[in-house]
């Protein structure tokens, strides 16, 4: 017999799992209300791949899980027309596999397809959602969405907000953050030559958390000038960021060999990753600079 007031084992008293209730609201307003009711005890869930990973690593499930999987408007693709430009709206619940299979993404936003191809494995991509990858804040598709100037459309309980991806990722840090409803991809710019790439570097060839992810979307005109450029880098535990200084340096230039040395230095200066027990921030910076410069070198050659 063990005394009621004594710990059952030596050391810390045992931590027993708290039962989790799963809510499955049918629209965003209901989801918002459940979250308001339970506050920090509640967490939204879509595919649940990250939450299950965190549970296995020792993070207990929230007492209330608010599954968004019954909210039909969050699924699938819509083509929108906005001031003569077309957009693709991707519902936040759309799986990464469905995004990867989408013929429009493959044709018009190939770096997003490439980024998705590098996320986990086919089985995980069949459950993981594009919204979940964004809300993870360090997901590998985020740099690609940033350079494509994707918009995050979210619901704050009363209205829909539209933000760039970086701004939405910051909003998630707030307790009552708006629920991500969809991602909108604007029509890509047209030019004589497109410069776009997505590169992921990990510790093995496939299915590994990234050390560095780099994305670029740009246009070169007929004179060889870079007339449009968007660059972003991510990887590890730091949120991906646009590299604005590097973009400004490259913009309107006909790049020559000497520019690449300067660009290398600028990436080292501007990209601020985080260290972890496996990879230092300095190493990540070096990898990012090498990857970006090597891609631009191909352009010059």
């Amino acid at each position: 017999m063990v005394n009621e007031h004594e710990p059952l084992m030596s050391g810390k008293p045992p931590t027993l799992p708290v039962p989790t209730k799963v809510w499955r609201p049918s629209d965003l307003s209901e989801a918002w209300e459940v979250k308001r009711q339970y506050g920090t005890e509640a967490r939204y869930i879509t595919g649940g791949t990250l939450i299950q990973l965190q549970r296995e690593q020792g993070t207990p499930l929230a007492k209330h899980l608010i599954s968004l999987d019954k909210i039909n408007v969050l699924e699938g693709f819509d083509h929108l027309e906005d001031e003569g430009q077309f957009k693709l709206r991707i519902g936040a619940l759309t799986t990464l596999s469905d995004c990867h299979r989408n013929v429009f993404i493959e044709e018009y936003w190939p770096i997003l397809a490439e980024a998705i191809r590098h996320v986990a494995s086919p089985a995980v991509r069949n459950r993981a959602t594009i919204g979940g990858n964004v809300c993870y804040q360090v997901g590998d598709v985020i740099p690609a969405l940033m350079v494509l100037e994707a918009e995050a459309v979210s619901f704050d309980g009363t209205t829909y907000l539209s933000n760039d991806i970086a701004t939405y990722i910051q909003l998630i840090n707030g307790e009552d953050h708006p629920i991500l409803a969809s991602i909108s991809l604007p029509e890509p710019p047209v030019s004589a030559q497109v410069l776009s790439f997505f590169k992921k570097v990990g510790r093995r060839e496939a299915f590994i958390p990234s050390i560095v992810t780099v994305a670029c979307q740009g246009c070169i005109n007929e004179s060889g000038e870079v007339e449009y450029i968007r660059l972003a880098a991510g990887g590890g535990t730091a949120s991906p960021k646009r590299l604005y200084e590097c973009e400004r340096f490259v913009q309107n230039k006909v790049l020559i060999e000497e520019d690449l040395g300067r660009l290398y230095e600028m990436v080292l200066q501007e990209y601020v990753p985080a260290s972890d027990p496996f990879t230092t921030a300095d190493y990540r910076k070096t990898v990012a600079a090498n990857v970006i410069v090597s891609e631009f070198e191909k352009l010059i050659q």
Partner: protein
Amino acid sequence: MDKSDAVNVQTENVPVIDLNLTINENPVKLQVEPTARLVDILRDELQLTGTKISCGIGRCGACSVMIDGQLVNACLTMAYQADQTSITTIEGVSRDQEIDPIQKAFLEEGGFQCGYCTPGMVMAVKVLLEEVPVPTEEDIKMALSGNLCRCTGYGGIIRAVQRMAAENSEVR
């Protein structure tokens, strides 16, 4: 209060859901916690132990099953997510006491040693061949990128899939 009583008091409040699904073409009804892992339900509640547990985080593919025709990790799937679905496990791929041709190819090409990863591998290959009957080596590597084998070095596994691809090519 003894130790077992202390644990029982905590588990009394665990909510359960009615889970209705089809497993290997048989209707199944269960009462389970909504956040129970599908892999535990298959193995512990239904004794379908062909689906293996290894990493528990979707990295190794040992627990691969098909849900509504799609490959998923049973360790990443919670019970409520499997409600009203049709699931195929490794026990459901054989027909009339005959092993599936994919299993036969694995046997004949040396596609396994200890065999722990094999059920997951077979499920992944089954989905691949349904989508791409004659896959390239690149297709095969991509399809199996979430299935780890620590014994074979993958040579025999890829040979087994290529053999299936060759057979499918002849049929076409």
